[in-house]
């Protein structure tokens, strides 16, 4: 079980990938675009524990794992392993780090060299780090294979002769060859069937207690996370939104995203059909241009309206969705009125403006609004009739701007911190406890 000894410390880690960054692009004056895969994550991993990193595809969980192992260059931030700054390690230090921190990949079909026998695969780390020789080495490989549940007689077989589950065991044996302290498990069971997944999860559990291992388990599967982890960090669009002990996260989730994620998982019981669930609408925004403030605000079912607003959440949500589209200029104005309304570069002729506004509101607004709010929205849409995007966005922003878009909530320092304005500091800086 976990101790209070900190093994890994990640502080403000960022990893951006750059698009349009070739020489040609520069010649043509294209600005490079940053894909913010990991955008400022901080967490600790304590000795002997399993920390889960959970999130949907594209949230940056695998990149976090790779970057903290120094398999990717970080854009910014610091990672300490056993007290040493990983990115400042010299040659010898890095070699030692690579021995102590290992990784198991998701896909057991592409992470094993098809031209090497499994004996050679498991032996390779020993070769690279020049550990053990001769019979001692062979003996070690045999023991490893047996320990992960394979027969040592299979040393001379090739990966293609094994099933997915067995290959994942080979990958685990390879990761264990150098007796590491820390393992990053990147979706170790995602490619496996459930019955085989259970075998591998049990094996990982046994190995952890036998060899005093510390795990960082990256997975999109919440039931795997619940089963295997001591603490969990939930990621959304490159950031950690909530981190805490596994029980707290699953039984009293705070962040609206964590709650929605948990509610979305279908349970394998006959009571599943009657379970109340609230599903999220929309898709994850692009990490090239993440939303300002809280990144979850574009889908959040609990986005915070300005203080004096008398609207239901669903109506406010509808206005926020409309604002989002206008701010991204993601509305094709030409097609609004069909053939009835003439549209040219300067916009719509004066007499057609009311019809244009009605048609546009009909198309973009998902909810009925009270008259005062309907007027504000129509004012903004009328600005669009003159193709004045900025004006339209500004009209709406003035009335409806949320604290969630102004400020990105910080992740606190306590036992179960959450990055959400519903908790902690309010917009004016005053304490504003749990809702």
């Amino acid at each position, binding site marked *: 079980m976990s101790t209070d000894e900190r093994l890994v410390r990640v502080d403000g880690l960022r990893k951006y990938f750059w698009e349009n960054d070739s020489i040609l692009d520069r010649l043509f004056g294209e600005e490079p675009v940053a894909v913010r895969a990991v955008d400022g994550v901080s967490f600790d991993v304590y000795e002997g524990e399993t920390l889960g990193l959970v999130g*949907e*595809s594209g949230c940056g969980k695998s990149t976090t794992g790779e970057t903290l192992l120094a398999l990717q260059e970080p854009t910014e931030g610091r990672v300490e392993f056993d007290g040493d700054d990983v990115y400042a390690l010299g040659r010898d230090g890095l070699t030692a780090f690579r021995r102590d921190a290992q990784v198991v990949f998701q896909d057991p079909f592409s992470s094993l060299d098809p031209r090497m026998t499994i004996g050679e695969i498991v032996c390779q780390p020993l070769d690279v780090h020049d550990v053990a020789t001769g019979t001692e080495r062979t003996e070690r490989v045999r023991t490893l294979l*047996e*320990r*992960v*549940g*394979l*027969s*040592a*007689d299979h040393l001379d*077989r090739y990966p*293609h*002769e*094994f*099933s997915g*589950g*067995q290959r994942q*065991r080979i990958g685990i044996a390879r990761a264990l060859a150098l007796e590491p302290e820390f393992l990053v498990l990147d979706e170790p069971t995602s490619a496996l*069937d*459930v*019955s*085989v*997944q*259970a*075998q591998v*999860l*049990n*094996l990982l559990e*046994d190995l952890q207690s036998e060899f005093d291992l510390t795990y960082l388990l990256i997975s*999109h599967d*919440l*039931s*795997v996370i*619940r*089963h295997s982890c001591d603490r969990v960090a939930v990621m959304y669009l490159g950031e950690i939104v909530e981190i805490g002990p*596994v*029980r707290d996260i*699953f039984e009293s989730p705070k962040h609206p995203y964590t709650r929605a*994620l948990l*509610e*979305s*998982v*279908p*349970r*394998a*019981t*006959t009571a*599943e*059909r009657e379970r109340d*669930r609230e*599903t*999220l*609408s929309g*898709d994850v925004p692009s990490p090239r241009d993440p939303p300002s403030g809280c990144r979850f605000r574009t889908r959040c079912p609990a986005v915070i309206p300005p203080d004096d607003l008398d609207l239901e959440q669903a109506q406010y949500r509808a206005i926020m969705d409309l604002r989002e589209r206008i701010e991204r200029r993601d*509305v*094709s104005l030409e*097609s609004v009125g069909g053939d009835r309304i003439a549209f040219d570069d300067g916009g719509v002729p004066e007499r057609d403006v009311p019809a244009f506004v009605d048609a546009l509101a009909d*198309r*973009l607004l*998902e909810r009925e609004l009270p008259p005062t709010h309907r007027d504000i929205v129509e004012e903004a849409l009328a600005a669009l009739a003159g193709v004045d995007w900025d004006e339209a966005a500004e009209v709406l922003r003035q009335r409806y701007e949320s604290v969630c878009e102004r400020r990105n909530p910080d992740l606190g320092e306590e036992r179960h911190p959450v990055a959400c304005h519903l908790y902690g500091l309010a917009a004016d800086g005053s304490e504003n406890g749990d809702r």
Partner: protein
Amino acid sequence: MSESTEALLRVEGLSTRFFTEQGQVNAVSDLDLRIDRGDVYGIVGESGSGKSVTARSIMDLIESPGEITSGEIWYRNGELAAAVEDDHGHAVDGSFVDLLEIPERVRRSLRGTSFSMIFQDPESSFNPSLTVGEQLAEAVEVQRRASANPRSTRARTRSEEYSLGSFVLSTMLPSKRYVSEESRERAISLLELVGIPDPVERADEYPHEYSGGMLQRAMIAQALAGEPDLLIADEPTTALDVTIQAQILDLLDELKRETGMTILLITHNLGVIARMCDRVGVMYAGEIVERGTLADVFDDHVHPYTHGLLGSIPDVERAGGRLEPIPGNVPSLLDREMGDRCRFADRCPKAMEDCLSHPPEVDAEGSDHHAVRCVLAERSYDESRALPDDYFGEPDRPAEAVDEPQSDDEPLPAERTQPTLEDAGGDGS
């Protein structure tokens, strides 16, 4: 759960085999299935269990080297029965028609209007060079032309006006006769039906501009174009994230309520089954080993495989102790490697001597629909008749040890000195 208990589809004794270089693969063997109108029927199983091949057999999408070698697929459709009765009397039974006995062209004409299918990977199911709206309109057009000529069982994509030539002409001539304006409008209303916001605009976008969830919605819209009786959904949410999966399942639920459509849902995810299905069939090694209502299978299951499958999933609501995995690996479906015994016996914790002969499907306690292919349905587990642990030899041999063919039916208890999957994999055994 459904208003009527009228069977829409009855599959009897279906066997589908693939004749490959390595030998004959029995992907589906002797499979029985009954889907009632308005129900959601789920087939669950692990990879290689034959669930997708079953779906494709019903859709008539089995391609060489595969072949449906035996069985009957009875589909209830009075109109179709009347149309084919004269020429193919033997294929008609009341208002049921045996799909395997009617000519290929008739069968093909059922795709879209009677059966349609959605797949796991929406990205590869759309043509990247046409807009989503065009592709949907095309699907609508096909169905529209067919319904303009309902008695004709001619393959409608072969007709004159739907030829490659007319397509090429349509790109050059301004009068686009290829896809009519009505079809376009219907395409947009289909997009609206599946919950795509702003369908007018989205119809003019290309597949790459859609997110995975949106594209899956569009694929569902396309499948609905012909208002099919049966929608076959093959792992419809496997490629999606859980929040998007929840959206798609909500959508299917809603469509089912609104249109009364019948759905055959293929998945490996027991949670999705629990969320959606009225009836369930559990597949293992090409057979349905247990079927019945959701409660039969989840709460009153008899087959040790069903038990093992449910025991393998970690619970998201409880921090569990140890998982109980099924030891061993999915068996080979090569004909020569399959003995004439229960196919699960070598991994079964309750294997007895009786399991050495292949068990027939028998009724089990629970609802009328509960049937199971296991001797435990009729007698309880008897330890004195249990097979020794090492009866089937060492279970962790490589999956395809081609150079050393091992025969499964050789009852030679091998020495077991090495740790095996059971030992390492948990205390399931």
